[in-house]
């Protein structure tokens, strides 16, 4: 009953989206405002429709309807209700529906805004969004239907949507249950955050395509979607960080990022998105890079779809185990088709996308931004190469080659270092023209201080030259950025005769994007401290201990005290928990309780570390094995991860920075350079 209802609504949504697409194209070509309005209303209808369908699926999930294949795959009776709800995105079919539902929500949000002067964009924005929506709805309606049920046909169980001849509905007594690794608060919100980011990037893309089609290729489309890009970027970043935190807390390998293809799949649109965020500023301020911004937004869109495909199709083996599925070729076809069409549009509009000025200084702000973009693209190329190398090598050499973390670390480290250097230099350069002399005057104090700091670190902390280069760059960026806050606030303090604090807050409030960006730069450097710490200084030890025995690592002593194992039938889990006492240089610090949760339904273990986290380092203790009968011996693996906490501190500051930059401001007095020229179409609408 609910399954038929849910599926029926899906089909209706598909047809409504189809109508919306046709009406929008017709309305745009025939210049019929009534048709466009009709298409807009149809588009608005998809969100409540898909919400109903999703509600039906959630109802089935929560109420143990194991006759539905998807419910059987991702839930079991022992799961708590909140996990049953979040199982919605725990499998392929459900997550595709989730994607479509989010897209319908965002498209609706965008179509109910006041269009007024931008009305010519409206039909084409609807066209692009409805094509994307139709693709995802087509996937769930025809290939990955979350409402497919089990039928007993002549002695065997088969999945079908509707009853085959002489078949009776078959309900399994219990489901497989969500993979226990995914039963973690981080995992409950990590996929939706990534998806929010993914889907939100469809909106700037749709405006870019509308701008190309209508030929209105000034920076209006960028201004209209500036906040969408920022929020998309925020959610994508948030999703990435949550995924890392989840891996650190649950996967039990002492790290947060393993260069897994699925991680990279989410990281690639982040790279183009970050490049886009920077380069749109050049178009707004200087009227340059118009082709480039189009290409970036197109790439981001393609990588978002490609990323969804990688995470969901199982073409690449990874810890994110999702089964092989038939939808892979459709994804590839869709990505290729949209990419080709979009690039063709850019080529068609190439002449009217010419820059309004020329770049004429290698050290000007815009030139350094261009360099920043090239570096982000270089990281992207490295990632793409790494991800496709198993497929490509098999295709061309008949020998499957994989590239693991060492490849990525080796290839990206110099690029990241160059990016950090730019982060230190670019804020000091001027629009239009800068020279070595002006830059040198602005940077020498910070550079000298960073150098002194590095020498101190060399003497007291480490002789690892990669770490020293890293710390030098981090110090340089932090000092330059803080100096920028200081310099501007001092100047304002003198000019307006305010006190320093008032001057600083007013200054930041007047130019949210710039100072939000600086906060983000600072947060990135804090994260870089954590990354350097874990990448270069991580140490580990392991050993089997009898009760009372100790392991020593980096001044810490870990003593095995006791172990207990008990089943929780209601939850379907067996817990095994060890208690260890931790000492540092002989001083008792407290106890840690690493544990292993064994899930009966999936016969799978989850290794939860006992972690003691300080600003200096993390002591990360894993229970890996124990003697079941005597309880006398247990094997532990211990990591010391120096400085890793700065990673999480940095990510918190990062969110503050993005929210600060994205917060709606009422002050229209920005962009003085081009304000005069663009006055007739100011950005009051966003």
């Amino acid at each position, binding site marked *: 009953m609910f399954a038929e209802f849910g599926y029926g609504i899906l089909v209706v949504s598909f047809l409504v989206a189809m109508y919306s697409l046709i009406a929008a194209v017709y309305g745009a070509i025939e210049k019929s405002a009534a048709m466009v309005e009709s298409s807009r209303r149809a588009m608005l209808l998809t969100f409540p429709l898909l919400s109903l369908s999703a509600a039906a699926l959630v109802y089935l999930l929560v109420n143990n309807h194991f006759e539905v*294949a998807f419910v059987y795959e991702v839930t079991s009776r022992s799961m708590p209700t909140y996990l049953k709800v979040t199982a919605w995105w725990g499998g392929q079919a459900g997550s595709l529906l989730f994607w479509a539902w989010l897209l319908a929500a965002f498209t609706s949000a965008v179509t109910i805004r006041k269009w007024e002067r931008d009305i010519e964009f409206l039909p084409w924005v609807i066209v692009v969004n409805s094509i994307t929506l139709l693709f995802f709805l087509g996937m769930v309606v025809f290939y990955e239907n979350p409402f497919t049920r*089990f039928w007993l046909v002549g002695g065997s169980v088969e999945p079908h949507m509707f009853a085959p001849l002489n078949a009776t509905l078959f*309900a399994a007594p219990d489901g497989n249950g969500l993979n226990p690794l995914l039963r973690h608060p981080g995992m409950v919100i990590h996929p939706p955050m990534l998806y929010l980011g993914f889907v939100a990037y469809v909106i700037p893309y749709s405006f870019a395509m509308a701008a190309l089609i209508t030929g209105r290729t000034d920076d209006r489309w960028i201004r209209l979607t500036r906040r969408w890009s920022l929020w998309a970027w925020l959610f994508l970043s948030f999703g990435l960080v949550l995924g890392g935190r989840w891996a650190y807390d649950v996967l039990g390998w002492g790290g947060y990022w393993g260069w897994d293809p699925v991680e990279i799949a989410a990281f690639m649109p982040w790279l183009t998105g970050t490049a886009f965020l920077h380069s749109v500023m050049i178009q707004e301020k200087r009227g340059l890079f118009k082709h480039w911004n189009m290409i970036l937004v197109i790439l981001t869109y393609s990588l978002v779809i490609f990323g969804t495909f990688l995470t969901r199709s199982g073409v690449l083996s990874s810890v994110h185990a999702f089964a092989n599925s038939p939808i892979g070729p459709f994804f590839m076809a869709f990505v290729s088709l949209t990419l080709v069409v979009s690039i063709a549009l850019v080529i068609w509009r190439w002449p009217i996308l010419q820059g309004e000025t020329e770049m004429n200084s290698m050290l000007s702000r815009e030139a350094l931004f261009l*360099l920043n973009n090239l570096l982000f693209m270089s990281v992207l190329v490295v990632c793409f190469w790494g991800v496709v*190398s198993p497929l490509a090598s098999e295709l061309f050499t008949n020998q499957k080659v994989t590239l693991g973390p060492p490849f990525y670390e080796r290839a990206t480290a110099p690029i990241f270092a160059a990016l950090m250097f730019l982060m230190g230099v670019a804020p000091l350069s001027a629009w239009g023209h800068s020279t070595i002399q002006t830059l040198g005057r602005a940077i020498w104090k910070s550079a000298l201080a960073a150098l002194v700091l590095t020498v101190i670190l060399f003497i007291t902390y480490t002789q690892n030259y990669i770490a020293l280069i890293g710390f030098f760059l981090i110090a340089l960026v932090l000092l330059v950025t803080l100096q920028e806050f200081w310099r501007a606030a001092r100047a304002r303090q003198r000019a307006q005769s305010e006190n320093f604090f008032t001057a600083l807050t007013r200054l930041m409030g007047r130019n949210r994007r710039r100072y939000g960006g600086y906060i983000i730069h600072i947060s990135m450097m804090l994260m870089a401290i954590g990354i350097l710490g874990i990448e270069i200084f991580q140490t580990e030890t392991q050993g089997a201990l009898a009760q009372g025995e100790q392991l020593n690592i980096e001044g810490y002593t870990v003593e095995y005290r006791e172990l207990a194992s008990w089943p929780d039938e209601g939850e379907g889990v067996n817990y095994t928990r060890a208690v260890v006492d931790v000492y540092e240089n002989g001083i008792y610090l407290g106890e840690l309780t690493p544990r292993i949760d064994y899930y009966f339904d999936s016969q799978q273990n989850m290794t939860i570390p006992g972690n003691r986290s300080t600003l200096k380092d993390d002591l990360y203790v894993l229970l*890996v094995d124990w003697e079941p009968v005597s309880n006398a011996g247990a094997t532990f693996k211990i990591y010391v991860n120096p400085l890793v906490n700065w990673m999480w501190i940095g990510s918190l500051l990062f969110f503050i920075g993005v929210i600060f930059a994205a917060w709606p401001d009422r002050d229209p007095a920005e962009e003085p350079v081009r304000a005069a020229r663009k006055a007739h179409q100011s950005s009051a609408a966003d």
Partner: protein
Amino acid sequence: MQRTKFFLGGALILAAVVYLLVSSTQASAEYFMTVDEVKAKGDSVVGKSLRLSGAVLGDTIQYDSETLELTFDIAHVSGDNADIEAQGGLAEVLYQAVNDPTRERITIHYVGAKPDLLRSEAQAILTGKLSEDGVFYADEILLKCPTKYEEAVPEQAAAK
């Protein structure tokens, strides 16, 4: 003049990225191989970074919890997913591999905690190097077990 400078700069960056890609690929490529392929290539793959997969033979597992030394044998399993599907799925293929004494086998050596999923008929994916004595020294072990979790369609017997 400016234009030339920009092109020169771009070309430099491009060259640097290509260099990074090529050198890093050469330095850290891991070759995916099956047991048969390793046996067939013999000495030519000794010392190279390999990723080897096969079916774990349960009775060969030996573990010393004092020294954390682990050894076990794996039997050849096809590396091609389509092939595995054609032969009746991963569980079936692993079962056959373990119970077929004619299959090629390789001994694995590893130092570290014994993974929980290490048992007969598990699929092991090992990263490491082949030594001259024919033993594969693994740095990393990944295990996949065809469990109930992967059942797409419930067994009818469960309904009774």
